[in-house]
């Protein structure tokens, strides 16, 4: 079934996918300048829902929600170093850490709660926010530490330009040649 629908660009409420405008207006998105400088969290959380563990767990106080628990998180991009601790803390699994500084490829670290976990070096189908396969990716690291409480953090190597697009992956059964 074709999963891309005409209303995909109509925003999160209509389609479940953040539109370009929503992403741009999202307070958890780092600026382009900041993205160029090194790894950083990308918090794709645009709605007012009662939730704040990202703020509570950030060791550098780089996420601000404020007094009202339903306020969407505000990423303080100068403080964030892209440590990735928030990835597994987010109940909505809405946080990734991206590193766009690589010469040939971007890095995307994302939460993965499926088994079996991919292996390092495995080639996977990288998917965008609508589930469309956009490129191949190589699994760089797989971390399933106890502090992440069963949410594994998988870091993918994707071609330059895909770091802000790839948000999920599917196993392909292939390995690096």
């Amino acid at each position: 079934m074709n999963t891309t629908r005409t209303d995909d660009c109509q925003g999160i409420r209509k389609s479940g996918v953040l539109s370009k405008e929503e992403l741009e207006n999202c307070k958890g998105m780092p600026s382009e300048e900041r993205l160029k400088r090194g790894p950083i969290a990308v918090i794709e959380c645009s709605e007012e829902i009662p939730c704040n563990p990202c703020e509570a767990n950030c060791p550098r106080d780089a996420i601000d929600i404020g007094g009202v628990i339903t306020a969407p998180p505000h990423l303080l991009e100068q403080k964030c170093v892209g440590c990735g601790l928030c990835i597994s803390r987010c109940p909505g699994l809405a946080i990734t850490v991206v590193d766009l500084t690589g010469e040939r490829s971007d890095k995307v670290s994302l939460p993965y709660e499926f088994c079996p976990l991919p292996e390092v070096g495995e080639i996977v189908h990288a998917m965008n926010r609508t589930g469309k396969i956009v490129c191949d990716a190589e699994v760089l690291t797989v971390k399933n530490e106890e502090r992440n409480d069963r949410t594994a953090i998988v870091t993918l190597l994707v071609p330059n330009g895909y770091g802000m697009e790839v948000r999920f992956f599917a196993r392909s059964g292939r390995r690096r040649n």
Partner: protein
Amino acid sequence: MTAAFDKRITDHPILGPLDTTEQCTIFVDSKPLIARLGEPILAALMANDIWITRFTKKLGAPRGLFCGIGLCNDCLVFVDGLGCVRSCVTAVEEDMSIETRTNEKRRF
């Protein structure tokens, strides 16, 4: 079901590997089947690919799992010694003898 697939979730990213150390034998329509000790009858039936617990009396329509928490009474089966029970909330026991109502000769 159209295709065969593994009914037991042997590994799970959050819940971990399935514990199958404690098993028991139950008899479903006189056929011996393996169940996990303490699981509901319906889980044991489904794990063994039995999805129909009964046929309705009036229309002969099949019934099976619906609510899963003992509210809807769709999944009634007959257990020797216990009578008519809700299979989704009644735990299996060793040597339990269960009759699904796939056999319409039985008049319930």
